[in-house]
């Protein structure tokens, strides 16, 4: 690599003097007399240089940026448009129906159930994984024996395909031959039919999903706890803060940027959870474990009701944007970035 030479006596002074406007350094021969910044900005070389950098910048980001435009922004906007039409993927022209899709969704009681399921699924998984993650993360930070192994095991499910996690939990929840039967028999009870009764199906997918997510949150909390400023703790300890009060008044506020981040990303990923639901319950029985993300898939690719599916997807988008906005607003006020 000949270009990595850093200490060339001939070029070093040039590099130093070029510091304020580094871009101009290369085009300007070092021997030329001093030029003012104003002159340099106006010089044709400089302008050509700026234009060339701009072209290069655009060329470098173009593939990624276009991919994001074509496969993220364009479909998100187009999806909103589709929600005002009635279509089945087949008819030559979608039929404009205005707000009818939204009206029929909002007056349909089963859509209310889907919304409630989404709320329970996301809410429970986010709250439990963050509370559990803080607890386990601080447990791991004690460095008692086996914490390293515990951390590895906790994180492993996060690496597994949701399809495999869903399949595994389906077996564990089997009321006849699964671990659920063993667990409940220890309490002298019979295992519920987790995935086939509407009372339990939502809890089945929530448990499986939270199990997969918890290790990720734990590891993030653990890393954040190790990064906390130690001198603050020593000062607090001298002031007599211990145990719970230390955790409550020091650790929690200091971790607030992280819990804030984890709650936003947690809600977004819970709202997109699909593989576990698809494997374990197919949203059923009935709509008892159907969430918005499952419903979008079912309406679009099973019943081919594109209008309803895209309206549900738009509602999902709006809910997530509102939640993100509220969290950002609340975060500005309460998050401690010290």
């Amino acid at each position: 690599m000949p270009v990595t030479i850093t200490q060339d006596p001939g070029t070093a002074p040039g590099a130093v003097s070029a510091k304020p406007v580094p871009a101009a350094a290369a085009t300007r021969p070092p021997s030329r007399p001093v030029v003012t910044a104003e002159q340099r900005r106006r010089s044709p070389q400089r302008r050509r240089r700026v234009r060339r950098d701009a072209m290069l910048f655009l060329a470098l980001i173009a593939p990624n940026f276009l991919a994001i435009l074509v496969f993220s922004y364009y479909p998100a906007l187009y999806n909103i448009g589709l929600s005002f039409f009635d279509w089945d993927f087949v008819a030559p022209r979608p039929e404009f129906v205005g707000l009818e899709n939204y009206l029929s969704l909002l007056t349909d009681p089963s859509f209310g159930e889907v919304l409630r399921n989404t709320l329970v699924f996301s809410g429970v998984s986010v709250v439990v994984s963050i509370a559990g993650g803080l607890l386990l993360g601080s447990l791991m930070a004690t460095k008692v024996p086996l914490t390293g192994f515990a951390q590895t095991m906790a994180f492993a499910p996060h690496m597994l395909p949701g399809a495999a996690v869903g399949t595994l939990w389906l077996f564990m929840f089997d009321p006849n031959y699964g671990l659920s039967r063993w667990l409940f028999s220890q309490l002298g009870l019979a295992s519920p039919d987790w995935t086939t009764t509407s009372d339990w199906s939502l809890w089945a997918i929530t448990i499986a999903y939270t199990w997969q997510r918890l290790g990720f949150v734990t590891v993030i909390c653990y890393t954040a706890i190790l990064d906390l400023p130690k001198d603050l703790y020593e000062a607090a300890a001298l002031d007599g803060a211990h145990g719970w009060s230390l955790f409550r008044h020091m650790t929690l506020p200091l971790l607030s940027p992280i819990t804030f981040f984890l709650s936003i990303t947690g809600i977004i990923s819970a709202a997109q959870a699909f593989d576990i639901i698809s494997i374990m319950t197919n949203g059923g029985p009935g709509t008892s474990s159907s969430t918005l993300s499952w419903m979008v898939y079912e309406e679009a690719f099973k019943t081919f009701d594109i209008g309803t599916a895209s309206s549900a997807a738009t509602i999902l988008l709006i809910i997530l944007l509102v939640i993100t906005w509220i969290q950002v607003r609340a975060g500005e006020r309460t998050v401690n970035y010290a």
Partner: protein
Amino acid sequence: MSTLPAPAPSPSAAPAAAEATPAPAARNRGRARGPRRPLWRTALLMAGVLATIAVFLVPIYWLFSSALKPRPDIYTWPLQWIPTRLTLDNFVEAWTSAPFGRFFLNSIITTGVGTVLEITLAVMCAYAFVFVDFRYKKIFFGLIVASLMLPGHVTLIVNYMTVANLGWLNTYQGIILPGIASAFAMFLLYQFMRTIDKDILQAAEIDGAGHLRRMLTIVVPLSSPMILTSTLIVMVGKWNEYVWPLIVTSTADMRTLPIGLQFLRQQEGMSNWGAIMAGAVFVSLPMLILFFLAQKRIIGGLAAGALK
């Protein structure tokens, strides 16, 4: 790291201790600060650690042990915790009742090609944001990072239409291309490249090395740890991808492994758990091996993405 003094133990001991006894902190005042923790407290923490291990290890143990048990041993009560006989029959049955060879091939192709493409785009993009001057950089950066907030299900229907219009349904390019846009990996690489000493690049520039050459001979080698980390993270994501390949493929010979697992369940009548668990092992094992080989890197990368 292991010489961490007081701060780490105390906050963590707190929740567990608070549950156990009403006022442990008060009783231990003046002692808990020392490098040593009272024995009962260590025991309590250890119990917590063991419980954590059990919660995560038992289901994974159950997955592997069931896959290795002969059929009658799965359907017994009381449950057989430790298999008395081990067999590979379930794996053979899973492999023959669904085209797992083909699923593996499809998963390897889509994950491999998709990862290489996404990381290439991410490196180019991150380099541009860090090292190339442009006035409206911030707008582009904001747009790319904000796309992380868009839930995948909002784009599902229209992406399906796009791929269908291109005639790419049930093809590798149909599975791969909509997933190559990179925001998270780009962000990780961006954060890393910002720490590269700019003087090195300036010296190279004065030596006449253009941007492309600087990128390939200086920035890429210097960023290789983070490129490796983000490659691993992207790879895991693509391997585990479920909803998109499910929608875009329609024949068994184009399915990837996670969807193949569902296919196997249908073939096996939903309740031949031995074979189904064997299939789940096929799907999971590559990711578990990858994780155990590179866990520091993967966890470090994900934590860096979250904490910065």
